[in-house]
């Protein structure tokens, strides 16, 4: 049911963990749905230098979290803000239809982290 890319990111997730001195942190999801994603950012200048994640959730939730970290690293925050959940799913060659709701929140978590960064670092 999952694509090879999903299984690759699920079984070898990239950038798992926390960033000790993160300057933006975002979390989305809740326990009812069974998916919670937390994203840690290290932003320097306007560029995302490092991203890490922690996720409670199904295979799709972990794979999308992993993928969003790869997509975000090196991007400016404006570029990262236009990343959509859909784009993350597409980068994984798609998700099963049932997974498009709760489990596909990784870009939202990234945006929350950027929002947190912006609140803490008003331009």
């Amino acid at each position, binding site marked *: 049911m999952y694509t090879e890319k999903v299984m690759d990111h699920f079984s070898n997730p990239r950038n798992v963990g926390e960033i000790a001195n993160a300057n933006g942190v975002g979390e989305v999801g809740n326990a009812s749905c069974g998916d919670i994603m937390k994203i840690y950012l290290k932003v320097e200048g306007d560029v995302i230098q490092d991203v890490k994640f922690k996720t*409670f959730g199904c295979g799709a939730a972990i794979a999308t979290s992993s993928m969003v970290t790869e997509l975000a690293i090196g991007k400016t925050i404006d570029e990262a803000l236009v990343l959509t959940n859909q784009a993350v799913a597409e980068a994984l060659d798609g998700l099963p239809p*049932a997974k498009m709701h709760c489990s596909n929140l990784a870009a939202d978590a990234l945006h929350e982290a950027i929002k947190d960064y912006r609140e803490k670092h008003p331009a």
Partner: protein
Amino acid sequence: MNKIYLDNNATTAVKEEVLDAMLPYFREQFGNPSSVHWAGRMVSSAIEKAREQVAELLNCSPAEVIFLSCGSEGDNYAIKGTAEALKHKGNHIITTAVEHPAVLETCEALEKDGFEVTYLGVDRDGMLDLKELEAAITPQTILISVMWANNETGNIFPISEIGAIAKKHRVRFHTDAVQAAGKIPVDVRAANVDMAVISGHKIGAPKGVGAMYLKRGTKINRFMHGGHQERNRRAGTHNVAGIVGLGVACELALRDLDSNYAYVRQLRDKLEQGILETIPEVKLNGHPDADLRLPNTLNVSFNYIEGESLLLFFDMKGIAASSGSACTSGSLEPSHVMGAMGVDIVLAHSSTRFSLGPDNTEEEIDYVLNELPPIVQRLREMSPLYNREEPTPLSCDECRMVHRA
């Protein structure tokens, strides 16, 4: 890769003896058992033999056995057939919140047709309060439906006691014995059951065949209309090979019940103790007294981890189990059984069922006990709920939680 199958409550492989017994009924003895000629006659005796074998396992008369297409059909037939047949007497049905969907959704459908259904709750151990059950009976009550054993937790319900209550109040009693049959003794007479349902694929027969015990004299409306098969109680040309297989599977289940029970129980206990001893923060789901659970079933929640991701990691090691998480139930809610037991929502998403069978070995259990701790640790390290200080976000506006009280 190792292939370790610990999902026998989902389905089982067809047993060799069962398959051997079935094969002649595809090509050599292909007749329709309702036909009068040689081809039909050859086959009808095979059906009657299977009927005896099923009756033997359930301790009823062969005439009380009806062959069906699956367990779900049996539950539908028993409940809808009773509701129709007895609607002049009353419109109230009592069941439990932890039944299989084949029972729950049938009852929900009847509610739309004007029947009233009481869904009895369970305690934290997943057990019923029989006083509550008895108190729920009203003059309108026409049916009590309680499963013999629960598919998720393995909890065994006190069917004889419920049978006595039903008899005392003259209410018909149906039990879904799909998980109990072949794993523990199922004596429908001793338990005062009026209708009991079993399914072939849970006991080493193929998928797509089941049977119902219908106590002599029990009035029920037909569910499947058509031909006069099964003494007019179930239309449809017999699934001869499947029925023959079900018969042999029942015979084997009865023959091997004691030895399999003891063997599987010992493996399950080993797995249970091993997991509870080596992995911290694991919760047992179901009755803590192992005698009150099926000998083959273990349901545990590995806190902080979502069930589907756990199953996928198990799968990479060749271990097949199942989960009560929303992601694996195909809905947005985790298992209704965990919900009814009041299991914390995170723990419900992490509930994992291991259901063993007589083909499992001690080496397999050792392997599983070896592989589990690092998988659990790895996923916990990945989880934002592990070692968390702030409260866990619990609710979601978009999701509806279903509470069956």
